[in-house]
Structures are given as structure tokens and as C-alpha cells.
């Protein structure tokens, strides 16, 4: 997109070379106006199409804080937190195994990651759920013995399915983080007489966190959404409750909107948390920490008021 610069301007009127601020006529980006118009038109068409549908919008606020929905939100959050905990702990263990000099542990970690990343999580959930068909009992010799069907509750199925799958992804994220720290850091710590463990805890991991936190935030948000799959193995969470209400109340599509709205709210809250955690681990890596959104708002207000003073 090239636009001719204004060559007709009087050369006498051009600012003389010197410390005077440049006052040039900006380039007009006509292409931007056109593309903005097209985008707006498409958006309007989609909104119009939805306004023509027979959607009972009132049903969404009516059920928004329904007891069953709130229970569902709670269970979704619980499942997200617990699965991520399993995923993170498992991921750290796998990453350390994978990076260890022991070829056996390293190979086992490789195999685990290969298997759990290479199969769909929905298939894994069904496998956990239906293992009762091939194992009648669970028998942890001296500690515990029970029928498989009693042992493998929907919650445990969901946790194992989501958590073990997540561990494979977290392992790769942690490994990338540990590898991202410059080798000179390990050498400097060792040269000071620090042990391997201390070096890892005090020097490597805090720096690796900068690389680990952003993708882990994505994983948490992804996990929150993936929990909707576990309705397939009889665990009731937000999506399942919304579906149930939809069938009873005769407003199924509206209840899907409601569920979508709740997922959006939850993921938005999580993104804000992620921003602050990232900011914490950016200490020392940037000369000045980026301002928090609140500081940014305050900054803008200050600049407005100072502009008034100078004007």
C-alpha cells in the first residue's frame, strides 16, 4: 500500500533543519479503512443472523446463578486445579527423569511422553473408565483391595485421564524451561561450591520459571476447557449440568450459551492471574517491570493531568 507523499508543499514552508519538531502530513492508509469496513459488515451480518434465530435470551440470566450451574462451576474448577496439580508434579518428575544421565529413567520418561501425547485425551478417559471390563479387582497387595468398579469413580477417572495426559505436556514445558537457562549459571553456582540440588533450586528453577509460566498458563486455560470432556465418563461438571438443564427446561442452545459465558469468565480470570505471575518471574530479566494494568491506568490519568498543567 503506497501513497504519494505530498510533493506540492511549498519548499519555503518546510521547517528549517534544526531542533524544531517535525510536523509532517501522515501517510493515509486507505487500505485500512476498506478492510475495517469489510470486517464490520461481516460482523453485522453475523449479529443480524443471530437476532433472527428463535433464541430465548431470557433463559440465560434466569439460570446463570442456578444452584446446579454453581455446583458445576465449582466442580469444573476443582477438576481443573487437581488435574493441573497432578500434571505439574508429574511433569516435573518426568522432566527431571528425561534430563537425567540414567538411560533407563530417561527412556521411560520418553516412552510415557510419547504414549500420552500421542493418544487423544477422550480415548484415554474411556480407557480408564472401562478398565473394569478387564480387571475385576484392584489389588495393591497389603494396603487395598476392592472391586474395580467401586474404586474407579467418575472423579478418579477424570483426574487420572486429564492429569496423566497433562503430565506429558508439562514434562516437555519444564524440560524446555530447564534447558533454556544458560550453562554459565550452573558453572557459576558450582564454582561457588553449591551442590547440584542447591544449584537447581536456587539458581536454575527460578530462571526456568520465566519460560515455564506462560505455557503453563495456557495449559491451565486449556485444562479448564478440556474438563468439559469428562461428562463422557459420567462426571458432572459445568457443561454436563448446563446440558441437563437444557433438556429439562427446553432451552438447550441457550444453556450452551450460558456454559460458554461461564467458561469465558473463568478463563478471563485465569489470564489475569497469569499476567501477575509472569510479571513476578520477570524480575531482573527486564530493566523495568512492565506496569500492572492498574498502574497503566493511573499513568494515563497522570499524563492527562500533567498535560493540562503544561498546556
Amino acid at each position: 500500500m503506497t501513497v504519494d507523499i505530498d510533493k506540492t508543499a511549498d519548499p519555503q514552508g518546510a521547517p528549517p533543519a534544526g531542533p524544531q519538531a517535525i510536523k509532517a502530513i501522515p501517510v493515509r492508509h486507505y487500505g485500512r479503512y476498506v478492510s475495517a469496513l469489510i470486517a464490520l459488515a461481516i460482523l453485522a451480518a453475523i449479529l443480524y443472523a443471530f437476532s433472527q434465530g428463535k433464541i430465548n435470551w431470557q433463559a440465560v440470566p434466569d439460570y446463570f446463578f442456578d444452584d446446579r450451574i454453581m455446583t458445576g462451576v465449582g466442580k469444573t474448577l476443582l477438576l481443573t486445579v487437581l488435574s493441573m496439580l497432578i500434571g505439574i508434579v508429574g511433569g516435573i518428575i518426568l522432566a527431571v527423569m528425561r534430563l537425567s544421565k540414567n538411560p533407563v529413567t530417561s527412556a521411560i520418561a520418553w516412552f510415557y511422553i510419547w504414549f500420552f501425547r500421542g493418544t487423544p485425551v477422550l480415548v484415554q478417559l474411556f480407557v480408564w473408565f472401562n478398565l473394569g471390563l478387564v480387571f475385576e479387582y484392584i489389588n495393591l497387595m497389603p494396603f487395598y483391595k476392592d472391586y474395580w468398579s467401586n474404586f474407579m469413580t467418575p472423579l478418579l477417572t477424570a483426574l487420572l485421564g486429564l492429569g496423566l495426559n497433562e503430565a506429558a505436556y508439562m514434562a516437555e514445558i519444564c524440560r524446555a524451561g530447564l534447558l533454556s537457562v544458560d550453562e554459565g549459571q550452573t558453572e557459576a553456582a558450582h564454582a561457588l561450591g553449591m551442590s547440584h540440588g542447591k544449584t537447581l533450586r536456587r539458581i536454575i528453577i527460578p530462571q526456568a520459571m520465566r519460560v515455564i509460566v506462560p505455557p503453563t498458563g495456557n495449559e491451565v486455560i486449556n485444562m479448564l476447557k478440556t474438563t468439559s470432556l469428562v461428562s463422557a465418563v459420567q462426571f458432572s461438571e459445568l457443561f454436563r449440568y448446563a446440558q441437563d438443564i437444557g433438556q429439562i427446561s427446553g432451552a438447550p442452545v441457550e444453556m450452551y450459551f450460558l456454559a460458554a459465558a461461564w467458561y469465558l469468565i473463568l478463563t478471563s480470570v485465569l489470564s489475569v492471574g497469569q499476567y501477575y505471575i509472569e510479571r513476578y518471574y520477570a524480575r531482573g530479566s527486564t530493566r523495568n517491570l512492565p506496569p500492572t494494568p492498574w498502574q497503566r491506568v493511573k499513568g494515563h490519568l497522570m499524563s492527562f493531568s500533567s498535560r493540562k498543567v503544561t498546556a
Partner: protein
Amino acid sequence: MTDKLPQQDTAARDTSVPMVKAEGVHKSFGQVEVLKGIDLEVKPGEVFCLIGPSGSGKSTFLRCINHLEKINAGRLYVDGELVGYRQQGDKLYELRDREVAMKRRNIGMVFQRFNLFPHMTAVENVMEAPVQVKGMNKAEAKERAMQLLERVGLADRAGHYPSQLSGGQQQRVAIARALAMDPKLMLFDEPTSALDPELVGDVLDVMRDLAESGMTMVVVTHEMGFAREVGDSLVFMDGGVVVESGNPREVLTNPQHERTKSFLSKVL
């Protein structure tokens, strides 16, 4: 930086035991032999300079001294003790990581790329090892760290992160960090090579003060002026062997070997 470091008690030290002693040290990386039999001795209280072209093995040798690299053949002693191994009869036993770490406490090292811990402030960098390795309490370590930062002229930068410091300032913090462990030997791996020419002087001043305080120093450097002025001994290495050694003023002004002459003619 202007005030002198306190004189160390060098008289009490047994000067008959060399601080570093290398006997036929060999080191290979895979097929490449980097050190082909190094023999040398660093006396206590001495400033020992290693010069040579890049790839000559001088940095590798330095890293062998605190066992960051394992040697393949020969013997290397620090303060009379074997580096990385324990000898019983005629058998050598590899030291455990913990034992290696114990020995490294007594050897300070300063790197070309500083290698400060970027997630800690200057004073936290200096405190880290005394607190974590020696178990010193934090208040005491902080006080010590502040004294050390004062010595290297950076007391006013204590709260800054490494990314907020210039290269020369970072290197001086790195020297303070190494000194915090009260080492009896300091290793410098091209400490000024990554610095702007303007900032080299500040770092060399700190090293000069350190030398005057009686610290034993092994310095890999390209600063011939520093070697001539401060050095007590100098070794010219090339191709993994010691080509020439002696008093730095003599070697630098009147080199005997052709290789030394051609190297010095390019760098001086």
C-alpha cells in the same frame, strides 16, 4: 576501589607447597586433544598470568583447576591436594559431587561472561554462596556483602539487578561474589574480554588491589599491560602446550621462541 584491600596473612602460609601444581595434564574433548601435557607451578601469593591465542587451551586449563572440566591424564594439585580425585595406595577414587563442591569453596572463579545470577540483585548475588553454602545468617552475610561491594566501588548499586548494571559493574560484582567465600585462590577467565575498552580499567583496578593484598591469582588474559605490571609469572600457551614461561617483563619484552614472538607482535 581506591582504598586498599587488607593485607592477607601470607607469612603464616607454608610457601613450600605450591598453590597449584600441574604434572603432565592432558585434556581431550572427544577426539580433540586440547591440553597436551601441561606442567606448571603457581606459588602462594603469586599473580600467575596465562596468555596465548584462542584455542590454545588456557581457559580449559583454568577450568580444570576447579574441576569444571575433568582431566584425562596427569595430576593436578591445589594446595597440595589432588583435584577431583582421592588417592589411596596406587588407586584413584573419583570424588563425590559433595566433596568436589567442598573443595570449590576455597577457589573463587570469575568468568568472561560474568555469569551473575540475573534474578538476584547485586547484594543478593554476593550473599548467595555464604548463606546457601556456608550457612551464614542473612544479616551477617548482607553486611559482609556490602563491605565487598564497597571494596569494588559498587555499594551504591547493591539493590540493582545485573541487567541494570554495565558490563564493568557486573564483572566487579562477580569478583565480590567470588571473594565472599574467602577463597585462597582466585581464577580469572578473561575477565575483561567482554567489556567495552572504557570499562576495562575499573575491573583491572580491582584485580590490582586484590593482587596487592596477597591473593593468589591465576589470570587468563589478553591485557598484556596488566600482566607486565601486576604479574609475577607468565606462561605463553599454544596448541595445548606451554611454549614459554618466566617473568612477565622478560617474556613480554624479550621472547625467546618464534611462536611467542609472532603472537606478541600481533597483540602488543
